[in-house]
């Protein structure tokens, strides 16, 4: 790293007396965050506070709003659809995140092995779904998972299994949606996990091999603990994504069948399209609380001892 930038070069081109006065160290961070803060406050914080305030009103988009206190919140907390949407997201989380971590880790470990050929090809292949426009993906899914004509059931029939109503039964719609999400985002998680793997020093394995540890043992006692924080990062990231998931069920199932794929994100969107902006806003802040609680939980659970 020291070869990248030598202090001499720095001094050579940038005179010492020139910079110090006009950007003191105490002021510098404020200057650095300023461009970001300007945009952030104007287009994130302001609308967020607006929304927070909206959540205590019955505003429907026109005219004056009426302050309703915690009404929207208590309505949601006593509403089956709201809890149902959270439950749907929780089940989807269970279907997605553990599978994604295991599968992602497996693929990352394989891709981290120099002996595997065509690694560039695999990296691209796993990331192609990630870059495919979602609106096209929705159409693909509807056709591929059709009960009678879809490719998936065609394959099942080949091995003697019966047709499955992938998108038309409430038992299977969630797994199908989970599969779409896995398909679309696992490539990204693989890359993140790969980054964790690559930061492990090869010498650790050499030491372990000399000590006679089997490779399976090495995986579980060396690799997994060392990538724990990377795994945690992925888990938190995907928890946010799963609970906010809106576009996928919106374009593929529209929440059906039987609202079994009405995710937390889709449910709040439905409030908004119904014109019930206050309830939609309240719903989203309840979601923030849920997601924050979960994040804290995972962080604690997966934290390394240090």
């Amino acid at each position, binding site marked *: 790293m020291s070869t990248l930038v030598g202090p001499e070069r720095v001094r050579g081109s940038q005179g010492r007396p020139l910079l110090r006065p006009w950007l003191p160290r105490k002021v510098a961070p404020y200057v650095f965050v300023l461009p970001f803060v300007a945009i952030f406050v104007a287009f994130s914080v302001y609308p967020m506070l607006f929304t927070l305030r909206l959540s205590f009103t019955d505003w429907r988009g026109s005219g004056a709003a009426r302050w309703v206190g915690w009404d929207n919140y208590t309505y949601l907390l006593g509403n089956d659809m709201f809890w149902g949407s959270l439950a749907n997201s929780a089940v989807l989380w269970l279907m997605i995140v553990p599978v994604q971590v295991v599968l992602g880790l497996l693929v990352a470990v394989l891709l981290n092995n120099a002996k*595997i050929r065509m690694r560039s090809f695999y990296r691209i292949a796993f*990331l192609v779904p990630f870059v495919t426009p979602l609106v096209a993906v929705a159409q693909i899914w509807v056709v591929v998972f059709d009960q009678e004509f879809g490719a998936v059931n065609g394959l099942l029939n080949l091995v003697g299994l019966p047709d499955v109503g992938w998108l038309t039964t409430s038992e299977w719609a969630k797994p199908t949606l989970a599969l779409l999400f896995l398909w679309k985002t696992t490539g990204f998680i693989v890359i993140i996990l790969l980054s964790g793997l690559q930061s492990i020093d090869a010498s650790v394995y050499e030491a372990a091999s000399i000590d006679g540890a089997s490779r*399976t043992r090495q995986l579980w006692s060396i690799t997994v603990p060392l990538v724990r924080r990377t795994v945690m990062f992925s888990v938190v990231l995907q928890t*946010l994504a799963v609970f906010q998931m809106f576009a996928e069920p919106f374009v593929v199932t529209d929440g059906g069948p039987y609202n079994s794929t009405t995710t937390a994100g889709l449910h709040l969107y439905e409030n908004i399209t119904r014109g019930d*902006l206050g309830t939609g806003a309240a719903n989203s802040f309840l979601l923030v609380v849920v997601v924050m609680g979960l994040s804290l939980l995972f962080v604690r659970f997966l934290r390394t001892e240090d």
Partner: protein
Amino acid sequence: MTTTHAASPAGTRSARTRATATRPPGQSSRGLPAAVGSQAFLLLLALAFLAPVVWALVSAFKPATQIISDPLGLDLTALTLENYRRMFADVPIGQGFLNTAVVLVTKGAITLFCAPLAAYAFAKYRFPGRDLLFGTVLITLMLPTIVLIIPLLLEMKALGWVNTYQALVLPGAVDAFAIFWMRQVIADVPDELLDAARVDGCGEFGIFTRIVLPVIRPALAGLAVLTVMNIYNDFVWPVVAASSERMATLQVVLSTLAQNITGNRVGADYATVTGELLAAASIALVPLLIVFIALQRHFINGILAGSVKG
């Protein structure tokens, strides 16, 4: 439910068996069969990941009605450019490309300038208000963006920005994730390096441009590609912010087509619109795919650099 139960144990089992083949500095006694197994596993998985996209690319050349009635069949003699012809006639996809390009360049530049700079301040300086500001960033990361759309639109109206490039570019120009990620990356740049430069008389901004940026360049490349992909594929905000056809980005064009299928299929031209949509999606995907393949080394190395060894 069933997939989880079925897949997790299976996945775990194969993780154990496959892993035997994959230790980097291996003295492989039974390496060969396991390596073949790993290779086969990766190949199958990669094909499963590619198949749906290949299906879409190929189907765009099939007659529209066949896409629905015979999704898996492929009649080579019937291949046609009709979907593309209709799509070009029906939707302003050229204008869409143009608008997307404008947004991509400006919004991308803002993100790539502001995010690392602010992240540098978050990671390497202690200053009053830092934790409050960063905490706010985390909250916005947890807030579903969909709920901000109406407040943002009202803001655009107040600013007189509806149907302008500003409206497409500025909201979300520095997304919370970019700050979050860049902060991790810069935090891992050794403090000694920065202090050494400071001792040598380098100014605060100079440290950023001359020390930090070069060190995190791979991660910046990663951020660049991720940002490009996100901007290119974003459709929720552009659909509402650009209500005029003149301002429609590529994804807005796509979702206008898709609306006829997914919103309500009460249209008479379900099949033809599906054909047009697949054609439009193919056209949208191909440039991104080419850029992605060309830059994949940078991209992947960039993300790999996301956690610098300390």
